[in-house]
């Protein structure tokens, strides 16, 4: 199971890196003479309502969908790790305040809070990423805080405290390296969910805007033509399914080995 997940995900990464060389046509090239064609010899997956090559758009979309997900994760992780670290390291009143902020963020259903932030910033791919990261960080903050508090008990931290290591060095050299691998594993497993969420926003017309070939936005364009050109909604959806499934397969397999992953994973699958 883990192998198949790894194969899917690594293939997708290869596709996204090689996208410019793999596309048979330009993903943005409009050809009004060949609109809404089904799969044929020239266009392997057919064309959309503007005669653009669907396969090329899907391949290019791989790059965008995975790219924006990774970037969003990076923003969310940066905020989450900073807040969680401060909270776990200093404790006391700061910890209390920051954790209440986390509670508050998690008190909203996550899609709904993202919607609210997007409404302030306006629709668009960048804003969708910011909005999602501003909601998503809270999960990581809580997680990092837990890990930091766990590490705090260990002997080497005691030793570091005893020899008077400065707080900044303590955080960067002693805490961070010890929690980073766990966080990174969890975050990479979570990437499927991020792709999912960002494509939902694209689908609602609030994320990536046309003509950007993002999978969710493509589905949104295709859905109005469901009766005449079902291939337009079939393939982008399949692409999302396969991608998210790849990440989930890896997650599911790791779940049997590590308890921390397991708890996090099942919680995230539901929310």
């Amino acid at each position, binding site marked *: 199971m883990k192998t198949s997940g790894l194969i899917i995900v690594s293939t997708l990464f290869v596709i996204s890196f090689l996208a410019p060389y793999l596309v048979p046509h330009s993903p943005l090239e409009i050809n009004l003479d060949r609109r809404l064609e089904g799969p044929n010899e020239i266009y392997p997956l057919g064309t959309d309502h503007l005669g653009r090559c669907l396969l090329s758009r899907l391949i290019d979309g791989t790059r965008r969908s995975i790219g924006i997900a990774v970037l969003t994760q990076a923003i969310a992780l940066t905020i989450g790790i900073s807040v969680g670290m401060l909270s776990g390291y200093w404790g006391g009143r700061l910890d209390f305040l920051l954790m209440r902020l986390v509670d508050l963020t998690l008190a909203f259903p996550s899609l709904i809070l993202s*919607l609210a932030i997007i*409404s302030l910033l306006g629709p668009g791919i960048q804003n969708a990423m910011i909005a999602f990261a501003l909601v998503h960080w809270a999960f990581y903050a809580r997680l990092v805080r837990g890990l930091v508090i766990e590490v705090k008990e260990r002997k080497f931290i005691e030793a570091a405290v005893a020899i008077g290591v400065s707080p900044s060095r303590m955080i960067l050299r002693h805490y961070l390296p010890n929690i980073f691998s766990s966080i990174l594993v969890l975050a990479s497993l979570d990437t499927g969910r991020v792709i999912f969420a960002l494509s939902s926003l694209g689908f609602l*017309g609030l994320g990536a805007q046309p003509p950007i070939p993002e999978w969710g936005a493509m589905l949104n364009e295709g859905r109005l033509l*469901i009766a005449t050109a079902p291939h337009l909604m079939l393939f982008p959806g399949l692409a999302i399914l396969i991608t998210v499934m790849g990440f*989930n397969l890896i997650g599911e397999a790791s779940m049997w080995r590590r308890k921390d992953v397991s708890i996090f994973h099942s919680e995230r699958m*539901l929310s």
Partner: protein
Amino acid sequence: MLSYLGKRFLFLIPLWLGISLIVFLFLQLTPGDPAEILLRKEGIEPTREAIEAVRRKMGLDDPPYLQYGRWIWKVVHLDLGNSYRTGEPVAKELFTRLPATLELTFASFFLMVLLSLSAGILSAMKAYGRFDRMGIALAIFGASIPSFWLGLLLIYLFSVKLGWFPVMGRGSLIHLILPALTLGFGTAVIQARLLRTSLGEVLRKDFIRVAMAKGLRRGRILLRHALPNALLPLLTTFGVVLGRLLGGAVIVETIFSWPGLGRLAVEAILQRDYPVIQGYVLLTAFIFVLINLCVDVGYRLLDPRIELGR
């Protein structure tokens, strides 16, 4: 019990205040001067003097805490302002849309419980059997399939090709089936897995062995002895699940043109109707927190091992 309930409600107050503070901040951050918007709506030239007069009248120059207090007072009295688009009170718009969303959410919740119960029990009956392994595959599939795609596939198959169900709209029970299935499917398969795991654990307990030794029938052991115990841990997830359904309703309502809150919110965002968005966020967060409280209380009621006092 009563004192426990009272305590829980008291704990809700700071949470709700926090939520309202965030929503209030949101309101402050919305682009555009409310005084200017009001003037333009009434067809008055927004000169500097006119804006200043209206700002003073609306109390927009007062210190923020005063404005917050005044705003909260209005919210408590269900005065959420008027929609920029329709001019109707936001509270009225929200409450006309709320039943449709609740109908959809509860229908899919019901469907989810039904599906996950039967699938969970079937796969636990024969652990690692064919059905059980299929369940694992289905769970990963269900967690990975985007609801908006599932909805489109269902529409294509059952409405466009077979013509069994109406494509969109709300009305009779038949309108409800596809949207509810779209919304509930993802959670149902995951819940089925959780139930299967939890049932598997309970079935290894001593009291089950005793029941088997007594010679009780398998079906009876499963349903009467194991199931109630296995369901308890699932109950804690119901809060999260309902939150997911409420959020997912936004997408499903868009696909099926379901006249609920979610569609109202998406329309409002696309047209920058801030009072409606603000009301929507406030209302859903309120419901979400309330649901979580109910789940917590229900859990403690059903499981007497958990101390009520805490």
